[in-house]
């Protein structure tokens, strides 16, 4: 039994961590895209 607080084995814990990173990066990308769109539209481009 692992000492992971969610009771996962190391592979599952690593997969969950990677999924969390992917979600965080996706949210960051969303913010950047909205920011870029706003800049272009405000600039009349």
């Amino acid at each position, binding site marked *: 039994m692992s000492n992971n607080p969610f009771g996962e084995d190391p592979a599952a814990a690593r*997969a969950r961590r990677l999924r969390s990173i992917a979600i965080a990066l996706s949210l960051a990308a969303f913010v950047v895209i909205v920011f*870029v769109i706003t800049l272009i539209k405000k600039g009349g481009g």
Partner: protein
Amino acid sequence: MTDAATRAPAVAASWRDFLALMKPRVMSLVVLTAVTGLVCARAPMSPALAAIDVLCVALGAGGSAALNMGYDSDIDALMRRTRGRPVPAGRVQRADAMGLGVVLSLFSVGIMGLAANMLAAGLLAFTIFFYAVVYTRWLKRRTPQNIVIGGLAGALPPAVGWAAASGSAPLQAWLLVAIIFMWTPPHFWALSLYTSGDYAKAGVPMMPVTAGPASTRRQILAYSLLLTPLALAPAFVGLGGLVYLAVAGFGGLLFMVLAVRLVLSHAGESGEARNRDGDLYDVKAGAKAARNLFAFSILYLFALFTTLLAEHLLGVAAFADLIR
């Protein structure tokens, strides 16, 4: 629903599994046709906004594919071609696939509305709805016309691209849509002629399963007769140039030759399907004519849209302007 589709994954999913849920090969053809529509619109736009619009189309296609794979995981598990997909193979849970599909769909439509316009966002939303709900949930398991009507979802991306660039969807955009719409039945029925054993096993009423191979071959010829002249039309309405006319002409001729050879063949009738380990499909013997048309149909559509795109990027004069 199979156990594999609902139980917790036995193997931790990797990013490749989530990418596979988005059907990247289908996505690449969707992106090509959407970019062609976007460029053919000849509307001035920021390259960054154009790239975001294309990203939205790609993510929308990926979202609808993930919804399709989540919903269809029970029948995917029964077919050789699809049983290795992430959900039926037990690497991704069905709910996760559906969640990814919903998030990508909402994200792509929302960003499209912000970056382009409401028409493009509406068309993209309609495309996703048509594929994930109308085709996947209502048509696929009920009628042999599933891929005929459902083909509209795969045909719409040029109109989405055109609308994103120009804010409108004129008849020229719908001509590109019509070409893909007419291309879909010969393409998928040629495939299903030599994989009908798989579809029958899964209870999917593809045309060869319900109407038989001879009727399917005749219908493939009928759609090919409609498709090949229609594919010439862009050259006469100011969209395609001389190279496009040549590609559509010679490609259409070869398409017809392969369709006639298919009608004269016995493809789909050679009894039980066979397979060897490592084969992607349960292949029916004697279906070479069907495989040839299926393979060529991909090349044909790719060539039509690539030529159209290249001509517009290079500023080649439209054939209709040359003969005026």
